[in-house]
């Protein structure tokens, strides 16, 4: 993998840090008129998901990380691994629990997810921004309440629990924003 100098740092560049692939979020060049130059960099560690700030001496080089995002359809889980498929090549790949993490609660068959590969191995699985899931359990709620004040918890087919308006009932399919975990609307029929 190529090395990158701090001059090439910019948002989106993938580099290795402490043996872990990282994504540069922000890079700022800092140079006092009468002092040494540094690059102040915000970084997301791609495996742990931790965001941290690191200061590099300007001109330093770091190893690039072989990181690639691919769009794959979720197929099924065998209990240990989560299987995804490239809809064009029909190639399949399995991600482990660590890569899927909390996002397991948004995985629905045939939904297209972003799988981040490091040296060919999945390290993170990102669901679509919006998913449509069926409510398997929620309190009946009060008839006639359409304002949605306060809401109530609803359990979805994947096990996720989201707050929904009182008028939404068990068996209905709703649209959820996976980034915030919030109810958006009833699904379009």
């Amino acid at each position, binding site marked *: 993998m190529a090395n990158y100098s701090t001059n090439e740092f910019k948002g989106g560049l993938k580099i290795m840090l402490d043996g872990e692939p990282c994504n540069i979020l922000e890079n700022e060049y*800092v140079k006092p008129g009468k002092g040494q130059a540094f690059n102040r960099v915000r970084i997301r560690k791609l495996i742990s998901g931790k965001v941290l700030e690191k200061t590099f001496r300007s001109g330093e080089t770091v190893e690039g990380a072989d990181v690639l995002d691919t769009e794959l359809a979720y197929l099924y889980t065998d209990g240990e691994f989560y299987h995804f498929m490239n809809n064009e090549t029909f190639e399949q790949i399995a991600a482990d629990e660590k890569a899927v993490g909390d996002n397991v609660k948004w995985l629905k068959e045939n939904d297209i997810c972003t799988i981040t590969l490091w040296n060919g191995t999945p390290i993170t699985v990102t669901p679509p921004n919006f998913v449509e899931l069926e409510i398997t359990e929620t309190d009946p709620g009060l008839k006639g309440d359409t304002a949605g004040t306060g809401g109530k918890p609803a359990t979805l087919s994947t096990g996720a629990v989201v707050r929904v308006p009182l008028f939404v009932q068990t068996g209905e399919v709703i649209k959820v924003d996976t980034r915030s975990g919030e109810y958006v609307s009833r699904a379009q029929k």
Partner: protein
Amino acid sequence: MPHWRGSDLMHQTWHPTASAANIRARADLLQSIRRFFAQREVMEVETPLLSHGSVTDIHLSAFSTQFAHASDGKVKTLYLQTSPEYAMKRLLCAQIGACYQISKAFRHEAEGRWHNPEFTMLEWYRPGFDHHQLMDEMDELLQLTLEVEGAQRKSYQQVFEEVLTIDPLCASDNTLRRALSEHDIDIHGDAPLDRDAMLQLLFSFRIEPVIGQNVPCFVYGFPASQAALAKLNEQDPRTADRFEVYFKGVELANGFNELSDAREQRLRFNNDIEQRAALQLPPVEHDERFLQALEHGLPQCAGVALGVDRLLMLKTQSDHINQVISFPICRA
């Protein structure tokens, strides 16, 4: 992090990155600076951008070029100036009196939110002034151009004590190292930082963002090790009569009570050149004509250099230098 954005037209690389309003604002700013100095009878001067000698400071890097038409037939390396300081001091040694210059300066370093390798500098010198008198004058210039209230003035030691509860002149290197980690300044790699680099990181990352938020803040009395071309302070030689100006998180200007001792200046140059060799930095030729001028005699004076692009950024509330430069390096 803020970015400069504009209309679709601005994404075509022939087009200026600065808006028409900001190009106009630059013209107005330059005019008001020239008026300010005309009223005070400070004379505008011009000095060369290309020079045979260059700056020895280990943290500055000059562009160089080859001059193939010298009268002695030899090919010569010429440097683009990193500031007009040496040439302007030669004018002062020739008894030219109070003078200022608005010129391009060049630094061979990265571009960034506050940096373009080619930039506009305002530099002026006041014979008979010390650095505090020059701070008074600069304060008036900032009040005029930025329409702000009068500036604050604090010593380097005072801002460190107020913000970080550290005495920068007495603290051990270990204390500074601990302070860096306590303030979450995490340096990549194992190579140790020298004392000045640690002080500068603490200053840039933790002090600069909090001082001079409502009115500009002058910081004076930098450690002697960061004296550059300033005199050491007579009462406290641990500090130098050097000041900087900060406003809204930006380093705006750097000024000195100018060192006039030619021997001391030669020692500082030689020290820089030795350090450059130790750090395997490219060798540079020091400016011998500047040293000769100092030997002839520099009148007691104070001088300051101000980044005009940054001043314009503050005036136009821009968050990237490309918003105030017609064609930054990427479009030059």
